[in-house]
C-alpha cells in the first residue's frame, strides 16, 4: 500500500512536470526522420513545448487538417484547390525542406549514365525497350550499353515520390501528360511495382537491366547508382543536396505568394530537375496557446533547423526563400 502511494505520487509529479504545451501534427512520411529530430531538438531547448507527429502519409495529413483533428498537417504535394475549399479557414503552406527523386539502375559494369527527360519518358512509357537503343547510346557516348531488355520498376504504393516523378514527366512529355498523367498512384504503361523505396530498390538490385525511381535520401544512404539527368539549361546534373537546393533557387523569381509551386524541371544551370518542396500546413488563424509556440518553432526550423536538415540528408531551402517564408509566418493571426 505504501509503495502504491509513493508510485502514485511519483506519477502525478511526473505528469505535473511534463505538463508542456502539446502540439499535434500528422502527415507525410518522407520528412518524418527530419521532423522527429527537429521536434526532439526543439523540445530540448524549449521543454515547455512538445510537438507530436504521426507519419500517416500526405493524404492523411491533409484530411486531418481539414477535419481539424490536428494542429498542423504535412504534405509532400501542395493542397489542391478542391482540398483548400474544403478547409474551414485559409491554410498557409510552409515549405520546410526539399526532396528529390533519383533514377537508379542496374547495369553491371556501368557507373555513369546520362538521360534526357524525353528518354526517361520513352523508357517509362515502354517505347525504348533495350539498353543499346541508338537514342540511349547517343547520349552516352563514353560507355558501351549492353544488349539487354530494360525492366521498368515503379512504386506500387501511393506516394509523394511517384507524384513528383510523374509531375516531372508530365512537364517534359506531352504524350505522357495525355496518356498517363500525374499523381500519387498512376496507371503505369509498363513495368513492375515494388512497395516502398525498399521494394523498388529490392527489385532493381536483383534484375540486371532494370531502372526505377527512389527517394534521394534512400538512394544516398544505400549507395545506389544514379542517373545524371539533363535539366532545362541543357546540363546533365547529378542529384545532390546542392543541385536540389539550386532547383529551388532557380524558380524563386516565379514563386507565388502561397508557395504552392512545383519546381520539377526547374530553371538554373545547376538545378536537379526532379526536386520538390515538402510542406507543413497550418491555418492562418489559430488559437494562441497552440499558434504562438508553433510559429516560434517554424521560425526556428528556418534557422538552426535548416542546418540539422543538411546533416540528415535533406536539401535546405535557399536563403532568399527562407526570408520569404519568415515573412509569410508573420501573417498568422492568433485569436
Amino acid at each position, binding site marked *: 500500500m505504501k509503495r502504491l502511494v509513493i508510485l502514485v505520487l511519483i506519477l502525478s509529479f511526473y505528469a505535473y512536470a511534463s505538463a508542456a504545451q502539446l502540439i499535434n501534427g500528422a502527415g507525410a512520411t518522407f520528412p518524418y526522420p527530419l521532423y522527429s529530430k527537429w521536434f526532439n531538438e526543439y523540445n530540448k531547448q524549449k521543454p515547455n513545448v512538445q510537438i507530436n507527429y504521426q507519419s500517416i502519409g500526405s493524404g492523411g495529413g491533409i484530411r486531418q487538417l481539414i477535419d481539424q483533428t490536428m494542429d498542423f498537417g504535412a504534405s509532400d504535394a501542395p493542397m489542391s484547390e478542391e482540398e483548400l475549399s474544403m478547409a474551414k479557414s485559409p491554410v498557409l503552406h510552409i515549405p520546410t525542406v526539399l526532396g528529390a527523386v533519383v533514377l537508379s539502375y542496374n547495369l553491371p559494369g556501368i557507373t555513369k549514365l546520362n538521360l534526357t527527360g524525353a528518354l526517361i519518358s520513352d523508357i517509362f512509357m515502354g517505347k525504348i525497350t533495350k539498353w543499346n537503343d541508338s537514342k540511349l547510346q547517343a547520349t552516352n557516348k563514353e560507355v558501351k550499353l549492353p544488349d539487354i531488355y530494360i525492366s521498368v520498376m515503379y512504386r*506500387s504504393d*501511393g506516394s509523394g515520390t511517384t507524384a513528383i516523378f510523374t509531375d516531372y514527366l508530365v512537364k517534359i512529355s506531352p504524350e505522357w501528360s495525355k496518356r498517363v498523367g500525374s499523381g500519387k*498512384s498512376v*496507371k503505369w504503361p509498363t513495368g513492375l511495382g*515494388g512497395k516502398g523505396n525498399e521494394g523498388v530498390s529490392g*527489385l532493381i538490385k*536483383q534484375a540486371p537491366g532494370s531502372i526505377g525511381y527512389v527517394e534521394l535520401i534512400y538512394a544516398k544512404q544505400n549507395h545506389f547508382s544514379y542517373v545524371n539527368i539533363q535539366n532545362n539549361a541543357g546540363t546533365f546534373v547529378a542529384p545532390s543536396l546542392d543541385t536540389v537546393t539550386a532547383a529551388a533557387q532557380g524558380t524563386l523569381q516565379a514563386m507565388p505568394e502561397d508557395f504552392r509551386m512545383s519546381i520539377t524541371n526547374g530553371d538554373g544551370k545547376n538545378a536537379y530537375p526532379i526536386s520538390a518542396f515538402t510542406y507543413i500546413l497550418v491555418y492562418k488563424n489559430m488559437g494562441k496557446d497552440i499558434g504562438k509556440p508553433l510559429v516560434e518553432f517554424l521560425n526556428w526550423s528556418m534557422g538552426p533547423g535548416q542546418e540539422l536538415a543538411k546533416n540528415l540528408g535533406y536539401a535546405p531551402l535557399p536563403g532568399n526563400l527562407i526570408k520569404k517564408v519568415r515573412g509569410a509566418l508573420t501573417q498568422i493571426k492568433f485569436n
Partner: protein
Amino acid sequence: MKKKDKDFSDKIFYWILKILGYGTMVLLAALVVVLLKVSFPIFEKFGLKFFILNDWNPVTRVFGALPFIYGTVVTSLLAIVIAVPVSIGIALFVTEIANSKIKKILSFLVEMLAAIPSVVYGLWGLFVLVPWLRNSVEPFLGKYLGFIPLFYGAPYGVGVLAAGIILAIMIVPTVSSICREIFYSVPNLFREGALALGATHWEMMKLAVVKSSVSGIFGASILGLGRALGETMAVTMVIGNRPQISPSLFSPAQTLASLIANEYNEASNSSHLAALTAMGLVLLMVSLAVNTFAKIIQKRFQMRTGVGK
C-alpha cells in the same frame, strides 16, 4: 436461496454468451454497412460494371475490380494446389511413419512456420525465392513447357508463381496440422482392417487413412484458402503489383488485399478512396463466395463417402 443464486449466475452466463455470439454477426453486418456506405459513390458511378471492368486508373478516376479479383483467386488457388499435397504428405509422415521423437520435432517446426510474420516471408521471397525463380525455375519451365500458356513469357521472377509459392508456404502449417488431427482421429480399426486384408503400409495409408478423411482434408484446404485470399504483405512484395489479366504464371499481377494496402494511405481523392473501399467489399464477397462454394462441395463429398461428418 442458494438455488436462486445459481439460476441467476446461469442466466448472466447465458446472456454473456448470447451477446458474444450475436455480437459477431452484428460486427459483420456493421462492417458491410460501413463498406457499402463509403463505397456507394463508386457503385453509383459504375454500377455492376465495376466488377467486370479491366482497368484501374486513379488519374482518370476509372476503377474496375476484375484484374484484382483475378489475381486474388489465381494466386490463392495456386497456393492450394501446391500446399495441399505437401501438407497431406507431412501429416501422413507424422501420424503414420515417424517415430515419436521426430514426430514432435517436425510438428513443432511446421507450426513454427505459422509464427513467422508475413513481412519476413515477403522479404525472403523477394531476396531468395524471386532470384531463384528468375534464374533457374522459370527459364527451365519456359524452355520445356513454354508451349503451354501457363509458362509463357519473360521470366521476371516476381509474379503469380512467386506469390503462389509464398502463400503455399504460409498456409502449409494450417493445412498440415488440421490434416494431422484428422488422420489421428481415423479409428485404428480401419488401419488394422486394411492391413488384415493384405494391404501394404502404403495401401493402408491410401485406403484407410486418406480416403476416409477426404472431406476433412477439404475443410482444411478451405481454412488455408481463407488465409491465402486475405494475405497482404508477403504477396505485395513478390507479385509485381501490376493489375493485369494474363494466363501466364510468370506475369505480374495484383490482388485485392495488396491493392488496398498499397493505395489506401495515400488515396488521392474521394472517388479513389471509395473505389478502394469497394475493393474491401469485393474481397469480403470473394471470400464468402469461395467458402460457400467449398461448403457445398464438402457436403457432396460427405454424402458420397459417408464419413467425416
